[in-house]
């Protein structure tokens, strides 16, 4: 087939359209509402007594900044100082919803859920403070990791409130009021890469760096032609090499 420019453009349009369609279930899976499992603040936020706030980045980092972006959304509504935030990777689990970074989906699909997670935790911290002081929650405000009660001039840090806040009921996420964008302190700002220091000192943070006990490496020699079949292979010679456990031929599944 002659892959001329015109054909290329048409193929791209089809591929692009197909990709957009494939994003729909992805958005649903990552998004809120409609996620198969409700996202919970406890899976994303932990606050130490000294105020250090550990936020979980649930989507993979591929260079787009997902490792920062999602925690930034949480931190914004949680109302903490970004300097108090530590970012950790989530690992994989159904409690995190969709975890794919790709197709420009990670930011839009997590934009609302992550902010609501942060807002829910903030409300639980306020509830803990209000209960401690015996005042209505509506009279409390927050700023940079502190709950204030202006009427009585009292304050408690998130660190001081964290243990009690964890026992407060988790609010209904859709009911939460989110910040007006004009009040954003973190979203829209540039933040330093969460793993920059590890990258620059060669720490084993990439998939290729993972080693597990008894792990073997596989190398796959692909046929240079579609549906090609192996004519001959020196498997015994390969198997006799030091460290080689096995060598075998994989027959093609589809043949023309």
């Amino acid at each position: 087939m002659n892959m001329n420019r015109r054909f290329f453009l048409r193929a791209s349009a089809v591929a692009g359209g197909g990709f957009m369609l494939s994003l729909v279930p992805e958005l649903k899976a990552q998004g809120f509402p409609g996620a198969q499992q409700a996202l919970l603040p406890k899976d994303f936020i932990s606050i130490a007594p000294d105020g250090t706030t550990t936020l979980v980045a649930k989507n993979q980092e591929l260079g787009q900044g997902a490792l920062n972006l999602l925690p930034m959304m949480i931190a914004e509504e949680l109302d903490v100082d970004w300097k108090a935030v530590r970012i950790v990777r989530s690992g994989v689990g159904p409690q995190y919803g969709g975890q794919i970074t790709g197709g420009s989906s990670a930011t839009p699909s997590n934009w609302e859920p992550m902010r609501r997670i942060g807002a829910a935790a903030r409300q639980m911290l306020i509830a803990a403070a209000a209960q401690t002081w015996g005042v209505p929650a509506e009279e409390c405000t927050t700023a940079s990791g502190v709950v204030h009660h202006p009427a009585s001039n009292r304050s408690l840090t998130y660190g001081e409130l964290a243990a009690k806040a964890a026992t407060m009921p988790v609010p209904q996420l859709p009911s939460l009021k989110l910040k007006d964008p004009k009040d954003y302190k973190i979203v829209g700002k540039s933040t330093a890469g969460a793993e920059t220091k590890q990258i620059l000192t060669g720490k084993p943070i990439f998939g290729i760096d993972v080693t597990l006990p008894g792990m073997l490496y596989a190398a796959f020699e692909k046929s240079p032609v579609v549906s090609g079949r192996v004519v001959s292979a020196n498997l015994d010679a390969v198997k006799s090499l030091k460290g080689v456990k096995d060598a075998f031929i994989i027959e093609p599944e589809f043949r023309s």
Partner: protein
Amino acid sequence: MVKLSINGKQRQFDGDPDMPLLWLLRDEFDLKGTKFGCGMGLCGACTVHINGEPARSCVTRAADVAGKSITTIEGLSPDGSHPAQAAWDEIDVPQCGYCQAGQVMTACALLKKTPKPTDAEIDSAMAGNLCRCGTYVRIRAAVHRAAELSSSATMARKATGASVRGNNEVAK
């Protein structure tokens, strides 16, 4: 048997002498900082120093580094305080970060020979190190910054006799 020095430690290897240095570093000596990119010496992700010269470890045989001295990203400094690492950190160069160990190693080799490189000298020296995220503009800025940190550290050391590391922290 291949004997060599890796990050100042004497090491030996009695496996296949044709094994690329990259896998010697990663699999035999568990130094995962050096990355596999293309395996053909085309992308620069696997760059290390051999006797101080930048080299592509993926196309360098173990036998060819016998008796030589290898430096990897892990061996640049004990704590990430080498001027290039400090500059890369300050400018927050990495995005995904996969190519950056190679970028830093190439930049260090450039700075050793050319302490104050021009944009053109940086572009020329760094041309063989590819970055899919496209961090080239920050890489160039970081090389300039590393040159500044190196020279201020050198001047301060001459003036006070203090260590490079201490002065980098002051410079930051």
